[in-house]
């Protein structure tokens, strides 16, 4: 367990140190996965089904706001639809506009969720989403999640009917529209999945916020159970043909994801390093504010006492002799603080002292490095 905590600390330190590079890199990877999936699944417009275009668009997304991933994904899918049929593209534009006007404008910051939901559904991992979002996000995300589910089913219907639509002349545009709308309305699974996701999210969200012991564990467990029950009831009522083996397997994954989040919850406050600039009458300030990492204080004390050769006395900050003459140790600790081999003494006040008990200003940095 100690090793895990050490790894956690290293991961977080690394994240805070290089967040200026890590965040754009993550955005680039997310954008590439989304755009590549859209291209590989649709691929009607061969000119944009090109890895160079995907990479250029992903690169743009890496330094633009995260909402641009959704914009690019929408554009790519519309271009593919346009190449398939004008009426399909028109229906796509209408659907995206309605989703934006009615729902997404309430939660513009969770637009990444809309882009990720269809990808997870393609990978057959959607049931992780309401658990993970319930543990980390606000209820506004339910809207984004529902929009993602609608977009997934719409694209699925377009893909399923692409061969039929491609062979129909433009004069039969009304028939193309009928085929798509009939298929979308006949898709009962979409409603069931949306209801199950929203209910699961709300259960996880409210249980996680309860001021009780083990609220995270309870929220994860209850969320998984509610998700399975909601999908089961939906399947029984509407005969949606959802695979329950997949639901169970993904639920196990969702539990694992939930516990990984719990492991990091005390450290990751999602406040990244801030670079702020301001001025007053005398100065211009360029401040880098690094959030403190609130790791639980380690209760471990290593006491290793060997026979001392030289006989030397170590003093703490208040001048007390911490070290009995005649003993040599590599590490020594008592209720007042912690001794290390490198000669620095960490007092109970959290400051660092040299062997002679004098406070040393830079020792904290040296010690950590």
């Amino acid at each position, binding site marked *: 367990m100690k090793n895990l905590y050490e790894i956690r600390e290293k991961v977080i330190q690394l994240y805070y140190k290089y967040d200026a590079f890590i965040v754009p890199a993550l955005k680039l990877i997310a954008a590439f996965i989304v755009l590549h999936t859209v291209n590989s699944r649709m691929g009607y417009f061969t000119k944009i089904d090109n890895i160079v275009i995907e990479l250029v668009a992903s690169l743009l997304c890496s330094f633009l706001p995260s909402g641009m991933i959704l914009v690019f994904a929408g554009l790519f899918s519309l271009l593919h639809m346009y190449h398939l049929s004008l009426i399909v593209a028109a*229906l796509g534009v209408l659907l995206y506009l309605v989703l934006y006007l009615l729902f997404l404008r309430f939660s513009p910051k969770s637009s990444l969720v809309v882009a990720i939901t269809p990808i997870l559904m393609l990978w057959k991992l959607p049931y992780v989403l309401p658990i993970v979002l319930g543990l980390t996000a606000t209820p506004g995300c339910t809207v984004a999640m529902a929009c993602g589910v609608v977009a997934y089913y719409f694209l699925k219907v377009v893909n399923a009917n692409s061969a039929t639509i491609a062979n129909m002349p433009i004069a039969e545009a009304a028939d193309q529209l009928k085929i798509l709308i009939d298929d979308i309305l006949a898709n009962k699974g979409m409603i069931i999945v949306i209801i199950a996701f929203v209910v699961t999210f709300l259960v996880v969200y409210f249980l996680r916020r309860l001021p009780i012991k083990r609220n995270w564990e309870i929220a994860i467990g209850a969320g998984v159970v509610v998700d399975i029950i909601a999908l089961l009831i939906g399947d029984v009522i509407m005969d949606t043909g959802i695979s329950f083996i997949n639901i169970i397997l993904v639920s196990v994954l969702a539990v694992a994801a939930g516990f990984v989040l719990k492991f990091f919850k005390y450290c990751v406050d999602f406040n990244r390093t801030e670079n702020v600039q301001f001025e007053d009458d005398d100065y211009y300030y360029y401040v880098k504010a690094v959030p403190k990492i609130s790791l639980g204080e380690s209760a471990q004390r290593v006491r290793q006492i060997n026979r001392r050769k030289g006989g030397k006395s170590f003093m703490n900050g208040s001048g007390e002799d911490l070290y009995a003459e005649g003993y040599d140790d590599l590490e020594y600790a008592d209720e007042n603080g912690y001794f290390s081999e490198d000669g620095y003494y960490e007092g109970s006040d959290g400051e660092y002292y040299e062997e002679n008990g004098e406070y040393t200003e830079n020792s904290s940095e040296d010690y950590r490095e």
Partner: protein
Amino acid sequence: MLDRDKVIMMTRMSSYEKGKGKEHLRIGSFFRSDYIWASILKAAFAITVAFVFGLALYIYYNFDEFMSNIYEIDIISILKSFGKYYVIALIVYVGISYLVAFIKYSIAASNLRKYKSNLKKLRKLYKTNEKSV
């Protein structure tokens, strides 16, 4: 001479202005009633546009049927039935938008009160520093 407390306070405030504060300051620039009314109007516009799109799709979907029975269709009763659905959708959606706007404004106002109180504290710090100089 740099004042530690002043720098910490200014950094926190600047960080707020850069993040959530940007949205809160925008919301706070309206009176509560104006902000809520603007949200309601936006919501009414959005639901109307969505409804028009839906209606257009419905007509296009049933275009052949409409054209073959154009002289027999009771347009008034169809419009009444659409109007009923539109009013229900409008009331529900505007109601939700009102709630969202109300909550958003309350959160922004509460945060801006803290922000303004910090501004006052900062002003006091400046005055204290000036006197000591």
